[in-house]
């Protein structure tokens, strides 16, 4: 194996679960997540010479997020898709109906899936990936203050909607 690929596999591949988790939560679709992660890993590999140390996990997740944004942009034939514009398709079934039978895990999964994307991504990056505010700001391309307020709102919303079983 050549050096560059070896280095990439050593440094970047261990973060593929994080990449996949983010893609899954952003797209809420296993098939789309597969494509986005593969696309992101290839783009990362091509851009790898430009990676000069630093936080490779944050770097990789930034690429995953950009790949996701470009699939939205592509599917909507719009040059600038922004998170706020994206309309949420309905989840598989009415959450009220499904959640009654389900355990906490399934219920929480459904509630997170229904958060607006800009809230969902900070929540996933913070609570599942344990990233710092600074890293989340870097990945999402937003100021730290925005990360903080979005995170607080995401938590408040989630807390509100999970009130009856939490």
């Amino acid at each position: 194996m050549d050096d560059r690929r070896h280095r990439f596999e050593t440094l970047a591949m261990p973060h593929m679960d994080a990449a996949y988790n983010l893609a899954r939560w952003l797209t809420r679709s296993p098939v789309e997540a597969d494509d986005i992660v593969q696309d992101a890993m290839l783009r990362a590999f091509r851009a790898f010479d430009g990676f000069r140390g630093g936080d490779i996990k944050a770097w990789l997740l930034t690429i995953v997020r950009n790949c996701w944004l470009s699939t939205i942009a592509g599917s909507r034939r719009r040059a600038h898709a922004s998170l706020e514009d994206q309309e949420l398709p309905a989840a598989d079934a009415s959450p009220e109906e499904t959640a009654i039978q389900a355990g906490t895990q399934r219920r929480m999964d459904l509630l997170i899936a229904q958060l607006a994307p800009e809230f969902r991504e900070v929540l996933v990056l913070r609570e599942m990936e344990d990233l710092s505010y600074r890293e989340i700001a870097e990945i999402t391309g937003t100021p730290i203050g925005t990360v903080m307020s979005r995170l607080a709102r995401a938590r408040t919303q989630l807390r509100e909607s999970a009130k009856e079983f939490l």
Partner: protein
Amino acid sequence: MSCDHILATQSYLDGQLNGAESEVAERHLQTCAECQQFAAQTADLSDALRQTTRHRAPEFLRARVRAALKREAGPTKVRAFWWGAASGGGASALAAALALFLFLPPSAASLAEAIADAHARALTSGKTIMVASSNHHVVKPWLATHAGISPPATDFAAQGFVLTGGRIDTIAGARAAVSVYAHGNHELDLFTWVDKNGTLPPSTTVHGFRTAFWKEGDLNFAAVSDVDKAAFRKFIALARE
């Protein structure tokens, strides 16, 4: 949420503040009922979120990505540089330099890399555990037999760090016993190996993983994980007790 300090309280709870800021936030939290309520709710929510699904990349996707990388990288070429170097008079000097490089004890910095790499290798291959058990009466003797070292392998399940098993690994040419812990969806590795006089690096973040090192007698310990700072500190405090 009307308290002006709510975002500072959140930053404090998320372990994002430095010492001085953290003290200020802590003092405020002691006196503000609203922030206390927010803290309790955030903790409940974090517990619930720990049970949510952290999706893992499926095996076929890893294989697909590896194959794509291989195609992208193209066939491996013979390195012209080495032929050139070997044919010239510099060959013996080069060999000597290489030998020196190989026999040098690993520097402190490369040790941090080695630990992070070993952890990453295990995660990538999916083979983090060779003996799976949350019982330290199982893990400890297994490690003693296979690594020749008998680390404590204590279960900290009550404190949020569940012992899930052990494996053997190699660190700087030495055989290391690894106790493997789960914290929510994340994994922590605790490496133990024998080294009488090596210097240990300071705790740093390498390639996205936190590392920490300490010594007890002739035994070196290293913890490595991608959990957050607060959880990592808590784990180290437990492991060093």
